[in-house]
Protein backbone atom coordinates (compact mmCIF):
# COMPACT_ATOMS: atom_id res chain seq x y z
CA UNK A 1 0.00 0.00 0.00
CA UNK A 2 1.54 3.24 -1.09
CA UNK A 3 1.42 6.38 0.97
CA UNK A 4 -1.23 8.98 0.22
CA UNK A 5 0.08 12.44 -0.48
CA UNK A 6 -1.84 15.67 -0.89
CA UNK A 7 -1.49 18.06 -3.83
CA UNK A 8 -3.11 21.48 -3.54
CA UNK A 9 -4.47 23.14 -6.68
CA UNK A 10 -5.28 26.84 -6.66
CA UNK A 11 -6.74 29.25 -5.67
CA UNK A 12 -4.51 30.95 -8.23
CA UNK A 13 -3.66 28.40 -10.89
CA UNK A 14 -2.81 28.42 -14.57
CA UNK A 15 -5.56 25.99 -15.54
CA UNK A 16 -8.39 27.87 -13.85
CA UNK A 17 -9.69 31.22 -14.88
CA UNK A 18 -11.14 31.77 -11.44
CA UNK A 19 -10.04 31.12 -7.89
CA UNK A 20 -11.06 27.89 -6.27
CA UNK A 21 -9.14 25.45 -4.24
CA UNK A 22 -8.79 21.74 -4.92
CA UNK A 23 -7.02 19.42 -2.53
CA UNK A 24 -6.12 16.15 -4.21
CA UNK A 25 -5.27 13.00 -2.32
CA UNK A 26 -2.91 11.12 -4.55
CA UNK A 27 -1.53 7.61 -4.45
CA UNK A 28 1.35 7.39 -6.93
CA UNK A 29 -0.25 8.98 -10.00
CA UNK A 30 -3.86 8.15 -9.23
CA UNK A 31 -6.26 10.49 -7.48
CA UNK A 32 -8.07 8.72 -4.66
CA UNK A 33 -9.93 11.62 -3.18
CA UNK A 34 -10.59 15.28 -3.72
CA UNK A 35 -11.71 18.05 -1.46
CA UNK A 36 -12.96 21.27 -2.94
CA UNK A 37 -13.24 24.56 -1.18
CA UNK A 38 -15.16 27.52 -2.53
CA UNK A 39 -15.97 30.98 -1.36
CA UNK A 40 -13.14 32.99 -2.92
CA UNK A 41 -15.73 34.71 -5.09
CA UNK A 42 -18.48 34.95 -2.50
CA UNK A 43 -19.61 38.56 -2.47
CA UNK A 44 -23.03 38.19 -0.86
CA UNK A 45 -25.18 38.82 -3.91
CA UNK A 46 -28.36 37.31 -2.46
CA UNK A 47 -28.36 39.88 0.30
CA UNK A 48 -27.59 42.77 -2.04
CA UNK A 49 -30.14 41.72 -4.64
CA UNK A 50 -32.94 41.80 -2.08
CA UNK A 51 -32.40 45.49 -1.34
CA UNK A 52 -34.12 47.14 -4.30
CA UNK A 53 -35.95 45.20 -6.98
CA UNK A 54 -35.21 47.78 -9.67
CA UNK A 55 -31.50 47.88 -8.96
CA UNK A 56 -31.43 44.08 -8.92
CA UNK A 57 -32.08 44.08 -12.63
CA UNK A 58 -28.57 45.46 -13.17
CA UNK A 59 -27.03 43.64 -10.25
CA UNK A 60 -28.16 40.20 -11.36
CA UNK A 61 -26.25 40.66 -14.62
CA UNK A 62 -23.14 41.10 -12.51
CA UNK A 63 -23.56 37.72 -10.82
CA UNK A 64 -21.77 36.19 -13.76
CA UNK A 65 -20.33 37.86 -16.83
CA UNK A 66 -20.37 34.76 -19.01
CA UNK A 67 -24.10 34.13 -18.66
CA UNK A 68 -25.21 37.65 -17.67
CA UNK A 69 -28.17 37.79 -20.03
CA UNK A 70 -29.46 34.45 -18.80
CA UNK A 71 -29.34 35.73 -15.25
CA UNK A 72 -31.25 38.88 -16.06
CA UNK A 73 -33.76 36.94 -18.20
CA UNK A 74 -34.39 34.52 -15.38
CA UNK A 75 -34.85 37.39 -12.96
CA UNK A 76 -37.26 39.39 -15.10
CA UNK A 77 -39.22 36.24 -15.92
CA UNK A 78 -39.61 35.52 -12.22
CA UNK A 79 -40.69 39.09 -11.54
CA UNK A 80 -43.19 38.92 -14.40
CA UNK A 81 -44.73 35.84 -12.82
CA UNK A 82 -44.77 37.62 -9.47
CA UNK A 83 -46.51 40.67 -10.92
CA UNK A 84 -48.83 38.44 -12.96
CA UNK A 85 -48.05 39.90 -16.36
CA UNK A 86 -46.64 38.44 -19.52
CA UNK A 87 -43.93 39.83 -21.76
CA UNK A 88 -44.93 40.49 -25.38
CA UNK A 89 -44.07 37.91 -28.01
CA UNK A 90 -41.43 40.10 -29.61
CA UNK A 91 -39.62 40.63 -26.33
CA UNK A 92 -39.54 36.90 -25.71
CA UNK A 93 -38.05 36.26 -29.14
CA UNK A 94 -35.44 38.99 -28.67
CA UNK A 95 -34.54 37.41 -25.33
CA UNK A 96 -34.28 34.03 -26.97
CA UNK A 97 -32.01 35.32 -29.75
CA UNK A 98 -29.73 37.13 -27.32
CA UNK A 99 -29.66 34.16 -24.96
CA UNK A 100 -28.59 31.90 -27.80
CA UNK A 101 -25.96 34.43 -28.86
CA UNK A 102 -24.62 34.41 -25.34
CA UNK A 103 -24.68 30.62 -25.33
CA UNK A 104 -22.46 30.80 -28.42
CA UNK A 105 -19.93 33.00 -26.65
CA UNK A 106 -20.01 30.87 -23.52
CA UNK A 107 -19.70 27.52 -25.28
CA UNK A 108 -16.92 28.78 -27.53
CA UNK A 109 -15.12 29.99 -24.43
CA UNK A 110 -15.57 26.61 -22.76
CA UNK A 111 -14.36 24.76 -25.84
CA UNK A 112 -11.37 27.05 -26.18
CA UNK A 113 -10.61 26.62 -22.51
CA UNK A 114 -10.64 22.84 -22.74
CA UNK A 115 -8.43 22.94 -25.83
CA UNK A 116 -5.99 25.13 -23.93
CA UNK A 117 -6.01 22.83 -20.90
CA UNK A 118 -5.05 19.80 -22.96
CA UNK A 119 -2.26 21.92 -24.45
CA UNK A 120 -3.80 22.56 -27.86
CA UNK A 121 -2.97 26.24 -28.27
CA UNK A 122 -3.85 26.33 -31.96
CA UNK A 123 -7.42 25.17 -31.38
CA UNK A 124 -7.79 27.53 -28.42
CA UNK A 125 -6.96 30.46 -30.68
CA UNK A 126 -9.39 29.26 -33.36
CA UNK A 127 -12.29 29.01 -30.93
CA UNK A 128 -11.55 32.41 -29.51
CA UNK A 129 -11.38 33.93 -32.97
CA UNK A 130 -14.91 32.76 -33.73
CA UNK A 131 -16.00 33.89 -30.29
CA UNK A 132 -14.76 37.39 -30.93
CA UNK A 133 -17.04 37.52 -33.99
CA UNK A 134 -20.07 36.89 -31.75
CA UNK A 135 -18.79 39.34 -29.14
CA UNK A 136 -18.57 42.15 -31.69
CA UNK A 137 -22.04 41.18 -32.94
CA UNK A 138 -23.67 41.46 -29.51
CA UNK A 139 -21.76 44.70 -28.99
CA UNK A 140 -23.38 46.10 -32.14
CA UNK A 141 -26.84 44.92 -31.11
CA UNK A 142 -26.91 45.72 -27.41
CA UNK A 143 -24.13 48.24 -26.92
CA UNK A 144 -22.18 46.14 -24.47
CA UNK A 145 -19.76 43.27 -24.95
CA UNK A 146 -20.44 41.49 -21.68
CA UNK A 147 -23.43 43.04 -19.94
CA UNK A 148 -26.24 43.66 -22.42
CA UNK A 149 -28.61 45.53 -20.06
CA UNK A 150 -31.46 44.85 -22.48
CA UNK A 151 -34.03 43.33 -20.14
CA UNK A 152 -36.72 45.13 -18.20
CA UNK A 153 -39.47 43.68 -16.07
CA UNK A 154 -42.23 43.15 -18.61
CA UNK A 155 -40.18 42.99 -21.78
CA UNK A 156 -37.05 44.56 -23.17
CA UNK A 157 -35.79 48.09 -22.74
CA UNK A 158 -34.99 48.80 -26.35
CA UNK A 159 -36.20 47.13 -29.50
CA UNK A 160 -33.86 45.47 -31.96
CA UNK A 161 -34.11 47.20 -35.31
CA UNK A 162 -34.66 45.55 -38.68
CA UNK A 163 -31.02 46.27 -39.57
CA UNK A 164 -29.94 44.67 -36.34
CA UNK A 165 -31.80 41.45 -37.12
CA UNK A 166 -30.34 41.43 -40.62
CA UNK A 167 -26.89 41.89 -39.11
CA UNK A 168 -27.45 38.93 -36.79
CA UNK A 169 -28.58 36.75 -39.70
CA UNK A 170 -25.59 37.73 -41.86
CA UNK A 171 -23.14 37.09 -39.05
CA UNK A 172 -24.66 33.66 -38.48
CA UNK A 173 -24.32 32.87 -42.20
CA UNK A 174 -20.66 33.87 -42.02
CA UNK A 175 -20.05 31.95 -38.83
CA UNK A 176 -21.81 28.68 -39.58
CA UNK A 177 -19.37 27.14 -42.10
CA UNK A 178 -16.46 27.99 -39.83
CA UNK A 179 -18.18 26.39 -36.84
CA UNK A 180 -19.01 23.30 -38.91
CA UNK A 181 -15.33 23.05 -39.85
CA UNK A 182 -14.38 23.27 -36.20
CA UNK A 183 -16.89 20.57 -35.33
CA UNK A 184 -15.46 18.21 -37.89
CA UNK A 185 -12.00 18.93 -36.46
CA UNK A 186 -13.14 18.20 -32.90
CA UNK A 187 -14.83 15.00 -34.09
CA UNK A 188 -11.75 13.59 -35.76
CA UNK A 189 -8.84 15.17 -34.01
CA UNK A 190 -6.42 12.65 -32.52
CA UNK A 191 -4.99 14.84 -29.78
CA UNK A 192 -8.36 15.69 -28.31
CA UNK A 193 -9.71 12.17 -28.57
CA UNK A 194 -6.65 10.70 -26.89
CA UNK A 195 -6.72 13.19 -24.06
CA UNK A 196 -10.46 13.21 -23.43
CA UNK A 197 -12.08 9.87 -24.31
CA UNK A 198 -12.65 7.73 -21.23
CA UNK A 199 -11.40 10.43 -18.91
CA UNK A 200 -13.48 11.64 -15.98
CA UNK A 201 -16.47 9.36 -16.55
CA UNK A 202 -19.66 10.33 -14.75
CA UNK A 203 -22.24 7.56 -15.01
CA UNK A 204 -25.89 8.25 -15.67
CA UNK A 205 -26.83 7.31 -12.10
CA UNK A 206 -24.07 9.47 -10.60
CA UNK A 207 -25.05 12.40 -12.80
CA UNK A 208 -28.60 12.12 -11.47
CA UNK A 209 -27.44 11.66 -7.90
CA UNK A 210 -25.30 14.78 -8.04
CA UNK A 211 -28.28 16.66 -9.56
CA UNK A 212 -26.13 17.81 -12.48
CA UNK A 213 -27.67 19.97 -15.18
CA UNK A 214 -26.85 21.26 -18.64
CA UNK A 215 -24.07 19.85 -20.82
CA UNK A 216 -22.67 17.96 -17.83
CA UNK A 217 -25.84 15.90 -17.44
CA UNK A 218 -26.47 15.71 -21.19
CA UNK A 219 -22.98 14.31 -21.63
CA UNK A 220 -23.99 11.51 -19.26
CA UNK A 221 -27.12 10.56 -21.15
CA UNK A 222 -29.73 12.59 -19.26
CA UNK A 223 -31.64 14.69 -21.78
CA UNK A 224 -32.72 17.49 -19.44
CA UNK A 225 -33.26 20.76 -21.22
CA UNK A 226 -35.25 23.53 -19.57
CA UNK A 227 -35.68 25.26 -22.90
CA UNK A 228 -38.33 22.63 -23.64
CA UNK A 229 -40.31 23.27 -20.46
CA UNK A 230 -39.30 26.40 -18.63
CA UNK A 231 -38.96 29.33 -20.93
CA UNK A 232 -42.03 30.36 -22.84
CA UNK A 233 -40.17 31.50 -25.94
CA UNK A 234 -38.81 28.05 -26.74
CA UNK A 235 -40.73 25.08 -28.03
CA UNK A 236 -44.09 26.81 -27.66
CA UNK A 237 -44.08 29.42 -30.39
CA UNK A 238 -43.05 27.06 -33.13
CA UNK A 239 -39.33 26.93 -32.35
CA UNK A 240 -38.24 23.38 -33.07
CA UNK A 241 -35.25 21.67 -31.55
CA UNK A 242 -34.23 18.55 -29.74
CA UNK A 243 -31.90 18.30 -26.77
CA UNK A 244 -28.50 16.94 -27.66
CA UNK A 245 -27.16 14.21 -25.44
CA UNK A 246 -24.37 11.66 -25.45
CA UNK A 247 -24.31 8.47 -23.37
CA UNK A 248 -20.57 8.10 -22.69
CA UNK A 249 -20.32 10.51 -19.77
CA UNK A 250 -16.63 11.31 -20.29
CA UNK A 251 -14.90 14.63 -20.95
CA UNK A 252 -15.15 14.09 -24.70
CA UNK A 253 -18.93 13.58 -24.52
CA UNK A 254 -19.33 16.84 -22.61
CA UNK A 255 -17.14 18.62 -25.14
CA UNK A 256 -19.15 17.20 -28.03
CA UNK A 257 -22.43 18.28 -26.41
CA UNK A 258 -21.12 21.84 -26.34
CA UNK A 259 -19.81 21.60 -29.87
CA UNK A 260 -23.17 20.37 -31.19
CA UNK A 261 -25.06 22.97 -29.18
CA UNK A 262 -23.04 25.71 -30.82
CA UNK A 263 -24.43 24.62 -34.19
CA UNK A 264 -27.88 24.25 -32.64
CA UNK A 265 -27.72 27.82 -31.30
CA UNK A 266 -27.01 29.16 -34.77
CA UNK A 267 -30.10 27.32 -35.98
CA UNK A 268 -32.22 28.59 -33.07
CA UNK A 269 -31.16 32.18 -33.74
CA UNK A 270 -32.26 31.79 -37.38
CA UNK A 271 -35.60 30.34 -36.29
CA UNK A 272 -36.06 33.25 -33.89
CA UNK A 273 -35.40 35.82 -36.61
CA UNK A 274 -37.90 34.12 -38.92
CA UNK A 275 -40.61 34.11 -36.25
CA UNK A 276 -40.12 37.77 -35.38
CA UNK A 277 -43.15 40.00 -36.04
CA UNK A 278 -43.62 43.70 -35.42
CA UNK A 279 -45.39 44.56 -32.23
CA UNK A 280 -45.03 45.96 -28.73
CA UNK A 281 -41.96 45.03 -26.77
CA UNK A 282 -42.66 46.24 -23.24
CA UNK A 283 -45.55 45.82 -20.80
CA UNK A 284 -44.39 48.17 -18.10
CA UNK A 285 -45.18 47.34 -14.48
CA UNK A 286 -46.14 49.72 -11.71
CA UNK A 287 -45.87 49.44 -7.97
CA UNK A 288 -43.94 47.12 -5.72
CA UNK A 289 -43.74 43.35 -5.95
CA UNK A 290 -46.65 41.71 -4.10
CA UNK A 291 -46.20 39.48 -1.06
CA UNK A 292 -46.12 36.21 -2.93
CA UNK A 293 -43.46 34.00 -4.37
CA UNK A 294 -42.58 32.77 -7.84
CA UNK A 295 -40.11 30.55 -9.62
CA UNK A 296 -38.38 31.29 -12.89
CA UNK A 297 -36.09 29.05 -14.86
CA UNK A 298 -33.98 29.36 -17.99
CA UNK A 299 -31.41 27.10 -19.58
CA UNK A 300 -28.13 28.94 -19.10
CA UNK A 301 -25.05 27.72 -21.03
CA UNK A 302 -24.04 25.59 -18.05
CA UNK A 303 -27.51 24.25 -17.35
CA UNK A 304 -30.70 25.04 -15.58
CA UNK A 305 -30.70 28.37 -13.76
CA UNK A 306 -33.47 28.93 -11.24
CA UNK A 307 -34.57 32.08 -9.44
CA UNK A 308 -37.01 32.14 -6.55
CA UNK A 309 -38.32 35.50 -5.39
CA UNK A 310 -40.59 36.36 -2.49
CA UNK A 311 -41.82 39.94 -2.31
CA UNK A 312 -43.24 41.83 0.64
CA UNK A 313 -45.11 44.79 -0.90
CA UNK A 314 -42.05 46.98 -0.56
CA UNK A 315 -39.16 48.07 -2.73
CA UNK A 316 -37.12 45.49 -0.90
CA UNK A 317 -37.63 41.82 -1.57
CA UNK A 318 -38.16 39.40 1.27
CA UNK A 319 -35.85 36.80 -0.21
CA UNK A 320 -34.25 36.12 -3.55
CA UNK A 321 -32.58 32.81 -4.10
CA UNK A 322 -30.72 31.75 -7.16
CA UNK A 323 -29.68 28.21 -7.91
CA UNK A 324 -26.93 28.47 -10.44
CA UNK A 325 -25.98 25.50 -12.59
CA UNK A 326 -22.39 25.60 -11.36
CA UNK A 327 -23.49 24.98 -7.77
CA UNK A 328 -24.40 21.40 -8.66
CA UNK A 329 -22.02 20.80 -11.56
CA UNK A 330 -18.76 21.82 -9.91
CA UNK A 331 -19.12 19.58 -6.81
CA UNK A 332 -19.73 16.66 -9.17
CA UNK A 333 -16.10 17.05 -10.25
CA UNK A 334 -15.08 15.29 -7.04
CA UNK A 335 -17.00 12.22 -8.27
CA UNK A 336 -15.44 12.34 -11.75
CA UNK A 337 -11.94 12.86 -10.51
CA UNK A 338 -11.64 9.64 -8.49
CA UNK A 339 -9.36 7.18 -10.21
CA UNK A 340 -8.10 9.72 -12.71
CA UNK A 341 -4.46 10.62 -13.20
CA UNK A 342 -3.08 13.90 -11.92
CA UNK A 343 -2.43 15.12 -15.46
CA UNK A 344 -6.13 14.71 -16.25
CA UNK A 345 -7.36 16.83 -13.34
CA UNK A 346 -7.19 20.02 -15.41
CA UNK A 347 -9.24 18.76 -18.36
CA UNK A 348 -11.80 17.07 -16.06
CA UNK A 349 -12.35 20.22 -14.05
CA UNK A 350 -12.60 22.39 -17.14
CA UNK A 351 -14.92 19.93 -18.92
CA UNK A 352 -17.81 20.83 -16.61
CA UNK A 353 -17.14 24.49 -17.45
CA UNK A 354 -16.71 25.63 -13.85
CA UNK A 355 -18.04 29.08 -13.16
CA UNK A 356 -16.95 30.00 -9.67
CA UNK A 357 -18.59 33.40 -9.61
CA UNK A 358 -21.89 31.57 -10.19
CA UNK A 359 -21.13 28.95 -7.55
CA UNK A 360 -20.17 31.44 -4.88
CA UNK A 361 -22.28 34.42 -5.91
Amino acid at each position, binding site marked *: MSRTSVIPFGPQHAAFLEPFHLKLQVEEEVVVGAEMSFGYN*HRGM*EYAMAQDFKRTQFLCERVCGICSFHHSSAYVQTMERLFGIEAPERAKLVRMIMMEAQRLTSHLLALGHIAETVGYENMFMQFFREREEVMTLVNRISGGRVHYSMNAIGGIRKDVTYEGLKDIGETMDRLEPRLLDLRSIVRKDRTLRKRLIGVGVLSKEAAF*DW*CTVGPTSRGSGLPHDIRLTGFDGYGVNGVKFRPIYYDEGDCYARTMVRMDEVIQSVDLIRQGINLMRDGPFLNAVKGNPPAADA*YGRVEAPRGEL*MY*WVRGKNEVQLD*RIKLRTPALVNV*PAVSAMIKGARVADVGPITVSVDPCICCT*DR
Partner: protein
Amino acid sequence: MSAAEIDLRKKLERMSLKSPRPRLIDVIAADRRDGTYDLIYVFHHEGAIVDHRYVVNEDDDITSIADLYAGALCMEREIIDMYGLKFNGVTGGFLLDPSSPKNPLRQPRKEVAKDV
Protein backbone atom coordinates in the same frame (compact mmCIF):
# COMPACT_ATOMS: atom_id res chain seq x y z
CA MET B 1 -35.61 13.69 13.24
CA SER B 2 -38.33 16.27 13.25
CA ALA B 3 -41.88 15.62 12.11
CA ALA B 4 -41.34 17.67 8.97
CA GLU B 5 -38.34 15.58 8.03
CA ILE B 6 -40.17 12.28 8.47
CA ASP B 7 -42.87 13.65 6.22
CA LEU B 8 -40.32 14.67 3.59
CA ARG B 9 -38.63 11.28 3.66
CA LYS B 10 -41.98 9.53 3.22
CA LYS B 11 -42.81 11.79 0.31
CA LEU B 12 -39.41 11.26 -1.26
CA GLU B 13 -39.73 7.50 -0.95
CA ARG B 14 -43.18 7.59 -2.48
CA MET B 15 -41.90 9.80 -5.28
CA SER B 16 -38.89 7.63 -5.96
CA LEU B 17 -41.18 4.70 -6.74
CA LYS B 18 -42.52 6.72 -9.62
CA SER B 19 -40.73 6.77 -12.89
CA PRO B 20 -39.02 9.04 -13.80
CA ARG B 21 -37.63 9.81 -10.38
CA PRO B 22 -37.89 13.51 -9.48
CA ARG B 23 -34.71 15.51 -9.81
CA LEU B 24 -33.71 17.75 -6.92
CA ILE B 25 -33.30 21.34 -8.06
CA ASP B 26 -32.62 23.20 -4.85
CA VAL B 27 -33.11 23.48 -1.14
CA ILE B 28 -34.21 27.00 -0.29
CA ALA B 29 -34.22 28.53 3.15
CA ALA B 30 -35.93 31.81 3.97
CA ASP B 31 -36.25 33.75 7.18
CA ARG B 32 -39.80 34.14 8.52
CA ARG B 33 -38.54 36.79 10.94
CA ASP B 34 -39.98 35.12 14.05
CA GLY B 35 -37.26 32.61 14.84
CA THR B 36 -38.58 30.05 12.38
CA TYR B 37 -37.41 29.39 8.87
CA ASP B 38 -39.02 28.22 5.67
CA LEU B 39 -37.31 25.20 4.19
CA ILE B 40 -38.37 24.49 0.64
CA TYR B 41 -37.31 21.39 -1.26
CA VAL B 42 -37.75 22.04 -4.96
CA PHE B 43 -37.98 19.13 -7.38
CA HIS B 44 -38.34 18.83 -11.10
CA HIS B 45 -40.94 16.19 -11.81
CA GLU B 46 -42.56 15.43 -15.14
CA GLY B 47 -41.67 18.77 -16.68
CA ALA B 48 -42.81 21.00 -13.84
CA ILE B 49 -41.66 22.27 -10.47
CA VAL B 50 -42.90 20.36 -7.42
CA ASP B 51 -42.03 21.86 -4.06
CA HIS B 52 -42.39 20.67 -0.50
CA ARG B 53 -42.50 23.40 2.11
CA TYR B 54 -41.68 23.01 5.77
CA VAL B 55 -41.24 25.36 8.66
CA VAL B 56 -38.34 24.62 10.97
CA ASN B 57 -37.13 26.13 14.21
CA GLU B 58 -33.75 27.72 14.62
CA ASP B 59 -32.41 24.93 16.83
CA ASP B 60 -34.06 21.96 15.07
CA ASP B 61 -31.79 19.11 14.11
CA ILE B 62 -32.67 18.70 10.47
CA THR B 63 -31.86 15.41 8.77
CA SER B 64 -29.69 15.83 5.74
CA ILE B 65 -30.95 14.38 2.46
CA ALA B 66 -27.41 14.07 1.10
CA ASP B 67 -27.73 10.27 1.27
CA LEU B 68 -30.60 10.43 -1.23
CA TYR B 69 -29.15 13.16 -3.46
CA ALA B 70 -25.40 13.77 -3.24
CA GLY B 71 -25.87 17.21 -4.79
CA ALA B 72 -27.93 18.33 -1.78
CA LEU B 73 -24.81 18.50 0.36
CA CYS B 74 -23.61 21.83 -1.01
CA MET B 75 -27.07 23.36 -0.76
CA GLU B 76 -27.31 22.34 2.90
CA ARG B 77 -23.83 23.63 3.64
CA GLU B 78 -24.82 26.95 2.14
CA ILE B 79 -27.90 27.14 4.38
CA ILE B 80 -25.73 26.41 7.43
CA ASP B 81 -23.51 29.32 6.47
CA MET B 82 -26.28 31.75 5.65
CA TYR B 83 -28.78 31.05 8.44
CA GLY B 84 -26.98 29.01 11.06
CA LEU B 85 -29.43 26.11 10.86
CA LYS B 86 -28.21 22.65 11.80
CA PHE B 87 -28.18 19.66 9.49
CA ASN B 88 -27.25 16.26 10.87
CA GLY B 89 -23.70 15.36 9.98
CA VAL B 90 -23.10 18.34 7.70
CA THR B 91 -20.56 21.05 8.44
CA GLY B 92 -20.65 24.61 7.19
CA GLY B 93 -17.80 26.76 5.99
CA PHE B 94 -18.82 26.40 2.37
CA LEU B 95 -18.81 30.02 1.28
CA LEU B 96 -17.88 32.14 4.26
CA ASP B 97 -14.45 32.87 5.64
CA PRO B 98 -13.87 33.34 9.38
CA SER B 99 -13.51 37.07 8.70
CA SER B 100 -16.94 37.33 7.02
CA PRO B 101 -20.07 38.26 8.96
CA LYS B 102 -21.88 35.37 10.65
CA ASN B 103 -25.25 34.23 9.28
CA PRO B 104 -25.56 37.25 6.97
CA LEU B 105 -29.02 36.44 5.64
CA ARG B 106 -30.75 36.35 9.01
CA GLN B 107 -33.18 39.21 9.22
CA PRO B 108 -34.21 41.27 12.24
CA ARG B 109 -37.15 39.85 14.17
CA LYS B 110 -40.60 41.16 13.42
CA GLU B 111 -42.08 43.20 16.23
CA VAL B 112 -45.06 41.28 17.51
CA ALA B 113 -47.90 43.27 19.06
CA LYS B 114 -48.45 42.12 22.63
CA ASP B 115 -51.90 41.33 23.95
CA VAL B 116 -53.04 43.99 26.36
